[in-house]
Every structure is written in structure tokens, then in C-alpha cells.
């Protein structure tokens, strides 16, 4: 008993909290992004980037809190994406019905009472949807997953139907979307403060509600043990009603903000798949899908973490954040939840034991390989550039080449094979001493293979190119300034052979090429157009005429052609 009390008053408990871990993770992600991003956007322009992330976080956070509360109460709300879509459409529809002439275009502002009515109406719709969920779950006794799955698919199509019919009735033509021209909406689209303030206010309200009120405590009790809560005289059905309404109304608020952002209500795409991001944010934030666990502050941090990771990856690999968003969310959820329950994993034999482990090792290696093919070269480039930057400043020179010469597929295969070898080692039943030795050897082997590929592959290509050129009768010489000169002068080289030599000449980085007196014609000039390193070309005594050189000149404008 004495030992227990020591455990309860743990001075370091703050550090062990899920929220603290998330906060540190967010700082780490921001730091890494600043360092690895070759343009250092976060450093140069923290304001714009901060505002951008804050805007995204606020929009996602508003309905993620709703999802979190449903999850804490032991349910699940799959419908938030569709509720966003439906309420956005309803808001636009109400505007269209109340002020049709203003919605046809122009900058004339919509009357304030119309706006207020439309927004109020949308929130009422949110309440009605939440009540529908509660009724389906507590009275019809559907599992929450099924009830909200039904509205997830149903509401989107209802929104579309409403949209088409209302546009036909008011604007005269069927349309699957409703444009909004009101300047106040435009203002909302660019403002970060309005979503941020709404988010902050809702988060504080939800936090007080969950941690300081009877209602909140009963929600935890309901999620922790529903039967016990009911038998403790808690009105569980009303609590569920509250939780689903809260979630749906927050989604409605998000729906209004989302139609502002794009100034159009498009039921086909609005809020598509957002429910999963919201659930992911809640789960990353420490909510358990079994219910009874989770906090508002955790969910807020989970949302920020998700958005910073998405934004960070987009900054580093320089593609639109939309492309990899789903992938990142998936990976983050797996890691965050796995790391937060390390206690459960202890005592396992290892992640890659047994037949399932073998397949998992293949899975992970393949995934890493594919990722290396997709983003590898740029991703490898980022830290190398950073290192070069540092060394240049410190010692005035760079230590390594700025880019890996490995092509994406080779890099991918290397990554996949290396990882797989590491996993196989982890599976093996070697004893500790042998295992450490094997680790060292394998590590050396992996880097050995990398450098062998990085230096050997170009060398091998060079060798093959040399042989091919020499077989065709060409002579290769490297000049004093390092330029490569290839001489075919006087040989019987024709267009077909020249075409087959295209790749070889490219591998040689040829700078000067002499085709004087060969049989090449205009047709062969196409195969030279890809030689970006070519500076001088000798075409004297060939059948190439002006037309051929003109096309070549267009592809390689700096080329100096002798005829």
C-alpha cells in the first residue's frame, strides 16, 4: 500500500503524459522541417506559414473535437465529412432561397438578417442530424458505426439532390454547385482569425465541459463502462444525444467555414473523407476507440501535430500537401498509437517474429522502397544540401556531391533490400555477441553497397558506353579542360547506329562530337537532341542540311555547329 501511494504522487508524471509527448513531437517536427526544407520557408517567413497551418488546424480541429467527444463517450461518428458537406450546402441553399438575386453574381452584399438566418438554420440542421444519430443508436439500437455510416453515404447524396433542385428552381438551370459572391464570405476565406477564434472558443468550452462539469464526467463514465453508468443512474441515452448533437453541430460550423474558403458549395467534393482525419486527430491525441479515455487538449495537440506533419512533408519534398496527406495521416496514426501504448508491446518477442512477421518485414521494406522511388532523390538531397551548407560556411568547401547519382529505381531497390536484410537480422536467433557483430557487418555492407552503386554504376555505364562507341568506330579522348571529345570522322556511321548510341553518348557526358564525313542524315539529328552536355558538333561533309540543324538548334540553343 505504501508503495502505491508513491506511484500516485509521481513528480515526473507530467512528463509521462500523452499531451507532453505530443507537444515535444510538434516542436520536433517544426524544427526538422525548418532544417530539412531546402528553402527554409519556416525560417524565412514564419508568419505566413504559421497562419497557413493555424487556418488548416482550426478548420480540422473544430470538428475533430466533436469526434473526440463522441469517441470518449464510447461511440464513433463517421459522418462528420458528410455533415460538413450537407450543412455547407444547406447554408448556400438558404442564402439562395432567401436572397436569390444577390446570389446571381455581383459584389452587392447579402443582407445581414439573411446571413444570420442561413447560419442559424445550418446549425439547426446540425442539431437535427445529431438527434437523428442519437435516435438511431439509442432507440432503433443500431451500432454507432452503422448509424453514422448510413448518414455518411446518405447525406452527401441528399445534399447533391437538394442542390440540383434548388438551383433549377431559383436560377433556372440545374447545377451541382452553388457559387457565393458575397464579399463577407470572401473575407472569411482569407481570414485566419475567425476560424482560429471559433476553434479556440469551442476548444475551451469543450475542455471545461469535459473536465469540470457533471456532464463531462458522465461522458467519461459512459465511455468507460456503459452498463455501470446506466446502473449508476446516469441517463445514458440523453448523454449520447448530447454527444452526437455536439459533434454534428461542430461539423456544421466547419461546413459553413469550408464553403467560405472556396466560395462555392459543391456537394460532390466538400468535406470528402474529412471524418477520418478528425478521428485520426482524436486518436493521435490520446482518445481510445474503446471509450472513456481522451482529452480536449490532447485532441487539439493531435490536430496541430497532424497538420504540421502534413505541411512539413509537403515543404521538404516540394509537392502539394494534398498528394501525400492521406498517406501521412495513416502513417502518423499507426506510429502515434503504437508509441503511446508501449507498455502493451513490452514482453513481445519482436515485431518481425513468425510467419506474419516475415510478411510484415516484406511489407515494410517494399513500402520504404516505393517511397524511396517516389520521393527518395529529393528527400536524400535535403539533408545533403543542409550538410553542404554547413560545411561551406565552416570550412569553405563541400565534402560530398550535392546529389546522389543513383536513379530513383536503383535507390528504391537499395532501400528495400537493406531494410529487409535488417529485419532478417532482427528475426534471427543469434546470441547477443554474434548479433552485435552481425549488426556491424550488415551496417558496413549496406553502406558499402550504397557507395559501390553510387560510384560503380556510373563507372560501369561509362565502360559500356566506351565499348559501344569504340565498336562503332569512334575514338574517345578527354581533353585538358576535362571535356570529353568523341571522334567519328571518316567512319561509315549511319543514322541507325547513331540512334542506338544515343544512351551511350549521354552516359559519357560528351562535350564535343565530330561526325565529319559520316553517312548520317537529317533523320539522325533527333537522337542528338537529348545530349544536354554537348557544346560543339562537327557536321562537315555530311548529308545534314539546314532543316536538320535547325531542329537541333531549337533543342540545344547553346550548341556550336560546324557544317
Amino acid at each position, binding site marked *: 500500500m505504501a508503495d502505491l501511494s508513491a506511484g500516485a504522487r509521481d513528480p515526473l508524471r507530467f512528463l509521462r503524459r500523452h499531451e507532453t509527448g505530443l507537444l515535444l513531437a510538434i516542436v520536433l517536427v517544426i524544427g526538422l522541417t525548418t532544417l530539412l526544407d531546402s528553402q527554409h520557408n519556416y525560417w524565412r517567413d514564419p508568419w505566413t506559414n504559421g497562419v497557413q497551418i493555424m487556418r488548416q488546424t482550426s478548420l480540422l480541429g473544430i470538428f475533430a473535437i466533436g469526434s473526440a467527444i463522441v469517441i470518449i463517450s464510447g461511440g464513433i461518428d463517421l459522418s462528420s465529412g458528410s455533415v460538413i458537406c450537407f450543412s455547407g450546402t444547406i447554408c448556400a441553399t438558404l442564402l439562395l432561397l432567401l436572397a436569390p438575386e444577390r446570389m446571381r453574381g455581383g459584389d452587392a452584399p447579402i443582407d445581414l438578417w439573411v446571413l444570420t438566418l442561413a447560419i442559424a438554420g445550418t446549425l439547426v440542421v446540425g442539431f437535427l442530424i445529431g438527434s437523428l444519430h442519437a435516435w438511431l443508436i439509442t432507440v432503433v439500437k443500431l451500432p454507432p458505426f452503422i448509424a453514422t455510416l448510413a448518414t455518411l453515404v446518405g447525406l452527401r447524396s441528399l445534399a447533391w439532390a437538394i442542390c440540383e433542385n434548388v438551383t433549377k428552381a431559383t436560377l433556372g438551370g440545374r447545377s451541382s454547385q452553388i457559387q457565393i459572391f458575397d464579399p463577407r464570405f470572401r473575407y472569411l476565406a482569407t481570414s485566419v482569425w475567425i476560424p482560429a477564434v471559433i476553434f479556440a472558443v469551442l476548444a475551451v468550452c469543450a475542455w471545461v465541459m469535459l473536465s469540470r*462539469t*457533471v456532464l463531462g464526467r458522465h461522458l467519461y463514465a459512459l465511455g468507460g463502462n456503459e452498463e455501470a453508468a446506466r446502473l449508476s443512474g446516469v*441517463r445514458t441515452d440523453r448523454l449520447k444525444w448530447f454527444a452526437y448533437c455536439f459533434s454534428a453541430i461542430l461539423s456544421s460550423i466547419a461546413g459553413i467555414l469550408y464553403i467560405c474558403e472556396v466560395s462555392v458549395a459543391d456537394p460532390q467534393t466538400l468535406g470528402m473523407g474529412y471524418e477520418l482525419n478528425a478521428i485520426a486527430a482524436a486518436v493521435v491525441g490520446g482518445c481510445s476507440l474503446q471509450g472513456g479515455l481522451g482529452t480536449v487538449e490532447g485532441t487539439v495537440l493531435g490536430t496541430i501535430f497532424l497538420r504540421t506533419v502534413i505541411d512539413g512533408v509537403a515543404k521538404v519534398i516540394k509537392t502539394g500537401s494534398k498528394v501525400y496527406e492521406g498517406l501521412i495521416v495513416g502513417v502518423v496514426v499507426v506510429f502515434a498509437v503504437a508509441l503511446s501504448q508501449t507498455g502493451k508491446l513490452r514482453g513481445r518477442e519482436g515485431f518481425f517474429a513468425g510467419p506474419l512477421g516475415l510478411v510484415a518485414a516484406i511489407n515494410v521494406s517494399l513500402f520504404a522502397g516505393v517511397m524511396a522511388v517516389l520521393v527518395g532523390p529529393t528527400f536524400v538531397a535535403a539533408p545533403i544540401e543542409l550538410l553542404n551548407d554547413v560545411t561551406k560556411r565552416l570550412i569553405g568547401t563541400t565534402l560530398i556531391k550535392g546529389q546522389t547519382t543513383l536513379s530513383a529505381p536503383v535507390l528504391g531497390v537499395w532501400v528495400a533490400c537493406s531494410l529487409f536484410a535488417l529485419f532478417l537480422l532482427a528475426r534471427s536467433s543469434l546470441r547477443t555477441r554474434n548479433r552485435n557483430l552481425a549488426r556491424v557487418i550488415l551496417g558496413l555492407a549496406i553502406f558499402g553497397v550504397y557507395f559501390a552503386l553510387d560510384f560503380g554504376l556510373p563507372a560501369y555505364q561509362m565502360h559500356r558506353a566506351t565499348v559501344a562507341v569504340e565498336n562503332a568506330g569512334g575514338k574517345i579522348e578527354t581533353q585538358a579542360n576535362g571535356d570529353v571529345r568523341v571522334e567519328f570522322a571518316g567512319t561509315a556511321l549511319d543514322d541507325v547506329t547513331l540512334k542506338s548510341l544515343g544512351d551511350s553518348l549521354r552516359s559519357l557526358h560528351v562535350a564535343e562530337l565530330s561526325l565529319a564525313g559520316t553517312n548520317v542524315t537529317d533523320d539522325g539529328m533527333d537522337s542528338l537532341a537529348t545530349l544536354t552536355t554537348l557544346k560543339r558538333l562537327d557536321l562537315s561533309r555530311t548529308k545534314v542540311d539546314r532543316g536538320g540543324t535547325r531542329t537541333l538548334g531549337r533543342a540545344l540553343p547553346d550548341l556550336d555547329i560546324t557544317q
Partner: protein
Amino acid sequence: MPSDVPLISIENVTKRFPGVVALDGVTFDVRAGEFHAVVGENGAGKSTLMKIFSGVIPDFEGTLRIDGQEVRFANTRKAEAAGISIIHQELNLVEDLSAAANVFLGRERRTALGLLDDRAMQRAAATLFAELECNIRPDQPVRRLRVGDQQLVEIAKALSQDASILIMDEPTSALTESEVERLFRIIERLLARGVTIVYISHKLDEVFRRSDRITVLRDGKHVRTMARSETRPRELTHLMVGREISSFHHAEGRAPGEVVLDVKSLSLPWTGHARAWRLRNVSFRLRRGEVLGVAGLMGAGRTELLECLFGTSPEPPVGQIVLEGKEVHFASPADAKRAGVALVTEDRKRLGLFPQLNVRENITVCMLEEAATASLISARKERHAARESIALLNIKTPGTEAAITGLSGGNQQKAIIARWLRTRPKVLLLDDPTRGVDVGAKAELYRVIDRLCREGLGIIVTSSELPELITLCDRILVLCEGRLTGTFERGEFTEQALMEAATRREL
């Protein structure tokens, strides 16, 4: 016949959990073919020890030898392969699978084609159930079975594994007297077959009934191992709790007041069941300051009766319930709570505890309103309320913020009673309140019940142990198959008379 060869020997086994030493250098051995009882209060480390035997806990300090071989089971399958089977106190059944599927879970019989052979499994399960003298239908989902029958499914599962060592962790905690008799007949048969039985219990009558040797654990330490003939129950109790327990009749000198609850021909329908009624024409009165016991075998309708009084019966009851002169119809436990009725449920883990909430939150959950102004909880008032309850019922906890799951069964039960006392009920319903609670805590619960009764509370208590009702109650109602088959005043009741009423089928 038990030999002198140690089959299991435990040497210096220590197991630490965060903050607690569950086992502290425990050393003893179990001989081949003996009935070895392990006794100790809850929290003495009995269950932890058994989890080590059965591979549920793979990491511990010290050595465990089976047949002289040092072993360390990484999981339950490895333990089963070594011939050890365990019947856990908390049942481990898949509720939606049939009884037969549960018996063969993980070792399913297959046909030549590799498909499940349900027929063979059901036949084998039926044979096992017949051996256990129970009439569980093998194809019935376990969810539909009462706790007592579910435990028999667990026992059948262990039997089906042909285990050479059978560990039973409080196997009788949910059984009626006749089921206990049946269990001991089975144990006798198993011993004759040469099976070694390690029997964990805190019920001394069971321990003294058959065991060859008895090991006493207290606070994670080994106290003594002795032959049954060398000791007496009184001495054993003393060793277990470190103090003498006075057994006295609690009911002396109580003075019941006016009628607080009047139940008139209460019936509870049972749609789609051959019996048609879970309860039929039950009438009784409860007075202020009285403890009314409800006795009966499994399925007699004890729990259902309390559920009717608390507004949580599976179907709406028929008949009249009059609380303090007013007829009441409770649609939900919330209604019952507001009217002043409180129910402490039978299955603490499933129906009572909130495992994620701490001790304070578990105690205040029913009456949070008293600690809140305008729905906003005052942390100070709430902690004060929790401390008051902890002191009132003498709940042993490291503090108000400790995890409820870290408390012993008896203290968890007290926390749940405390939760309900905060609602200031007029009628307190206790459904088998001492199930899974050790001897010392039991005595303390009896004292608590007695005190509450003397303070003017009307209490209805059910129990599967007749001696418990006899020491505790002023009057005892006996149910048999949903009918009231006897009402006994204090002085009239003997175990014999109660058992007769509980098995009286026709009336």
C-alpha cells in the same frame, strides 16, 4: 494417493508490478497427486502466483520447476502443453460463441476436409457437461448462461485438455451449494485419476473439506505450508489475516421501524421462454432498519427481483411496488435513484466499476450534483466528499486519486457501496456483495451493512452463501424458480430449512 515427490516447486519467486510487490520471495512445493490448497486474503498474491504457473505472466524473478525441470512459460499455450490447466476467477469465455465452441477454443476438432466438426465438438462437450452433472446445452451461446453455468463451461474446458495439473482460482465464488457439492464430487474423481489440484480459495470450509496440504500466503509472502491435520480453521484464519476474526451474530438487538417498501404480487414475464415467468407473484415488505435476505439457487430469480425494484429488469414487471406509501414505476435506474433506491450489482467488474476513472471519481459518480454548482464541479468539494466516504467505510486506498483497479476486491466493493450511500437512499439493494471478497474484508462488509441498517436504512441482500445470510439478516426470503417458497424470521432459519425451501419445486 499423493506421493512425497514435489511435482511443482517454487523457489524464491518475486513479482513486482509498478508500485506493488505482488509476490515477495515465495518458496513452497506441490506434490504429485495431492489436493493442495492455497489460501490468503485478497491481495495476498494467490492470483499472481497462479498467473505465473499458467504463463499469463512470463517475467518474474526466481525459479519455477515442474518435475524437476526449470520452466518459464512464455504464454498460456506453453503452459497447457506442459499439462497445466487453469480455471480463472474472472471467467475467460467468448460470450457470443456456443458452450461447445468455448470448450474447444484454440483446439477445435476438424473433419477430414479440415472444416470445423461442430457435431463432434458438441458431442464431446455434452459428455463433459454430463460428467459435470449439469444440463448446459452445448450449442447455447455462453452469453445466455448465468455466471454459475459459465464457470462450469470453464471447468469443462480445463477437463477437456486432460491436464495433469489443474489450478482452480476461487472456483466456487459463483456457485450455489449444490453446485459446490457437484464440484467436489468431480474433484474427487480427478484426484482418483491422478490429477494434481492446486485449489485457491478463501473459503475455509472448502479448504478443510478435502485438501491434503494447505499453504498460507499473506501480503505477497509465504507464511506456512502444513498438512490439513496439523491445523484448525481458527488458526488458519489467524495466519491469513494476522489477527483473530470474531464471528458474531450481527442481527442482535435491531429494531425494525415502519414499512419502507411494500411489494405486492410482483411478476416478471419471460417472453419466449418455456417458463414464461422469471418471477411469479412475489410479495413481501421491507422495514426501515431491517436486513432482508434473499436466498435461492442460481436462476431462482434473486438478481431479477432486485432488478425489478431498481427499474432495470429486462422486461417491465407486473404488480405493485410501493415505496413509502406511494406506488412507483421505475423506467430506468435514474428514476430509482431519484426515488431513493440504490443497487450494488452482482458483477462488480462488468456492471459496477469504471476502470478508467480513479477512486474519487468512482465514489462520486452517482451524486456529482452535490459537489457542483450550476453543473460546474468544485474539485475541492468533490475531493472532500470522496475523503468523507473513504473514512466512513474505511476504504483502504493510497488516496483519492489512486486507480480503482489497484484496490482489492473488498475495497472496490466498499467504494461502490460508498457511491450509493452518497445518494442517501431509503432502500439499499445488495446483490451478492461479498462475491470474490476475502475473509477479513467480508467481516468488515458485514459490520458496514449492520451499521447502515441500525442507522435506519432498509437493506435487501442476496447471497449464494447461506451462512452469510444467516449471520446478517433479520428475515430471509427463499426463491425457487421465480416463486417465493418460504419466508423465515430470525431464530427460525437453519441451513437445512433454507435449502429445503430453495429446492421445493411445486407449491
